């Protein structure tokens, strides 16, 4: 089957987008509902609780603020890596993608300091309803960060061979990987104030 039939390099005439991009958006739609279920659970648990702690009193706001900045920065380097491919500059793409991967790892390291501090003080998900939903939501988000790092690292190294064969398709893949990475940033944009600042 040629790539023309599968519409992975060029937009499908009906949807106006590549099938790859439509596929990623369908996946992100399911992700919105996955996290939506957990946000819904959070509203339900918090609404039914009589002594819900203030996030800023029990969690580390400075570390989480730093992590928010790290994730925002990684989002901009991700989109700059895509823009570099549109400008046909593979070197710049590699640079921005490498920074994106490193920032993703930095997020995980900072998050593990936060988790480690909690575990040292014997605070586990079983400690309270607050910590149960805190660990569930930040843990699931952390798994998404790990997934994104794996995909981005693949496209940084072995996956970039496709650039020489089909630059259009490769640029589309980086745009799709970027959509996922920005979504992970977007989830954190809501998690941060709701869990840490209220």
């Amino acid at each position, binding site marked *: 089957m040629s790539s023309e039939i599968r519409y992975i390099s060029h937009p499908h005439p009906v949807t106006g987008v590549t099938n790859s991009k*439509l596929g990623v*958006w369908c996946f992100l739609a399911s992700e*919105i509902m996955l996290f939506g279920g957990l946000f819904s659970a959070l509203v*339900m648990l918090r609404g039914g609780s009589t002594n819900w702690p203030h996030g800023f009193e029990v969690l580390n706001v400075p570390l989480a603020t730093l992590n928010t900045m790290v994730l925002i920065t990684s989002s901009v380097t991700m989109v700059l890596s895509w823009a570099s491919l549109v400008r046909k500059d593979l070197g710049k793409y590699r640079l921005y993608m490498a920074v994106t991967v490193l920032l993703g790892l930095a997020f995980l390291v900072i998050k593990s300091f936060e988790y480690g501090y909690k575990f040292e003080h014997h605070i586990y998900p079983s400690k309270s309803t607050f910590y149960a939903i805190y660990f569930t939501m930040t843990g699931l988000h952390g798994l998404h960060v790990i997934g994104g790092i794996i995909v981005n690292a693949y496209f940084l190294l072995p996956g970039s061979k496709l650039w020489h064969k089909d630059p259009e398709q490769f640029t589309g893949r980086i745009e799709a990987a970027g*959509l996922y990475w920005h979504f992970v*940033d977007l989830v954190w944009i809501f998690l941060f*104030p709701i869990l840490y600042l209220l």
Partner: protein
Amino acid sequence: MSGHTEAEIKKHVRTYIAVFAALAALTVITVAISYLHLSFGPALALALAVASVKAGLVALFFMHLITEKKAILWLLGFTVFFFIVLLTIPPLFHH
């Protein structure tokens, strides 16, 4: 997103940097608001307002929704509708 001219891409990159600066500033603002220790209602409203502006900036510019095709926008419209349905379930059963 093919067929961009060099000038268009330069403009895009400037936009991305501006959005990045706005996101960083809004992060500082939302943390600063939390130090005011407002009562829960106003604190929640402000936190969600700032987060929504940040999310909007990411979705519109980094995820290119501002220039995206209708098929994607329809798909997302349906998703957002059902997301809101999900979030209205807890208040419905709370009273």
